[in-house]
């Protein structure tokens, strides 16, 4: 899923400065799963904003809404009858949400409530870790199920580097050196010879380095 962090409260409060009536739109997709922009988080943000504004004597009216997803126009369209009735709209979806909303309703101002961070999963309840960099050319199978692109700080294809220390990365002792784990697993499974061959230079054009990406699948287009 896409993992995000809620923006600092002061930043959000500043966004709605001068507004009397706003809408907060949550998303039932990734941000619900990573507990940052689902129904509960919409309610919490709305309540916190209302408290802050009541404190300053300038009450804020907030409409709380939740969309199935904010990355599909069919759901964005559901807001058409009400979206322009507000001074501003806060989207709690990943970076896609505020953009899709802005494209659909150019008259309205949309603010992002979250900082979108990475593609990852919950290793434990409340703890998420990065697992994919969306590079566009998956090579996980060559490294026994561990992605060196997203999980090595240098995205090394032929590691580890000299910064690997006791299984940790030099950037932080809390960050595992994925190359340490790859090598260990290869040794345990008797496949260490796989690492003798030097992995060729990766073609990064399939990644974001080749510019914004677009996919057209003819069998699905109408």
């Amino acid at each position, binding site marked *: 899923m896409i993992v995000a962090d809620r923006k*600092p*409260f*002061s930043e959000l409060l500043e966004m709605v400065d001068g507004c009397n009536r706003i809408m907060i739109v949550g998303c039932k997709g990734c941000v619900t799963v990573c507990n940052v922009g689902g129904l*509960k988080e919409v*309610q*919490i943000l709305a*309540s*916190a904003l*209302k*408290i*802050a504004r*009541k*404190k*300053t*004597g300038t*009450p804020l009216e907030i409409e709380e809404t939740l969309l199935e997803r904010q990355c599909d126009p069919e759901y964005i369209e559901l807001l058409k009858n009400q979206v322009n009735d507000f001074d501003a709209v806060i989207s709690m979806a990943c970076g896609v949400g505020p953009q899709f909303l802005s494209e659909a309703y150019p008259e309205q101002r949309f603010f992002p409530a979250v900082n979108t961070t990475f593609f990852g999963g919950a290793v434990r309840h409340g703890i998420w870790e990065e697992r994919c960099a969306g590079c566009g050319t998956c090579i996980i199978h060559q490294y026994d199920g561990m992605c060196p692109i997203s999980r090595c700080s240098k995205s090394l294809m032929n590691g580890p580097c000299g910064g690997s220390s006791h299984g940790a990365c030099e950037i932080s002792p809390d960050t595992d050196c994925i190359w340490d784990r790859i090598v260990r697993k290869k040794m345990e499974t008797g496949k260490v010879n796989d690492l003798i061959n030097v992995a060729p230079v990766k073609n990064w054009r399939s990644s974001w380095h080749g510019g914004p990406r677009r996919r057209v699948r003819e069998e699905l287009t109408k």
Partner: protein
Amino acid sequence: MSETFEPRILAFCCKYCAYAAADLAGSMRLSYPTNIKVIQVPCTGRVDIIHLLRAIEDGADGVYVAGCLEGECHFIEGNLRARKRVNYVKEVLKDIGIETERIEMYNLSSAMGPRFAEIAQEMTQKIKELGPSPVKMNQAA
């Protein structure tokens, strides 16, 4: 102002401990301030962040959650979760610029009737010193 100010304080009390302790306090004829309004919950783990925020939003001067002693939760760790949620709300209040002491977490057992009365007095006294919630004050204005 502080002489006439009677705070409204909400207490989320666990059925197995704090609520039973309140019962015991009653049976023992212990008096505690009438400012406390008790809401019984099956476990403090049921108390969510939004419940605490809404209480503040709707004008409560203080809110506290009273659960079992740590390690003695009927549902193992409901009270530990409640404490984390209370701490989250404290952070939210700090961001907003409201005194974090307006929300607290307490732990006690069902046999601690006098402690229940003491907590009620302690909380009431603290909120009286802090004065009315700024949310309520500006709302009235």
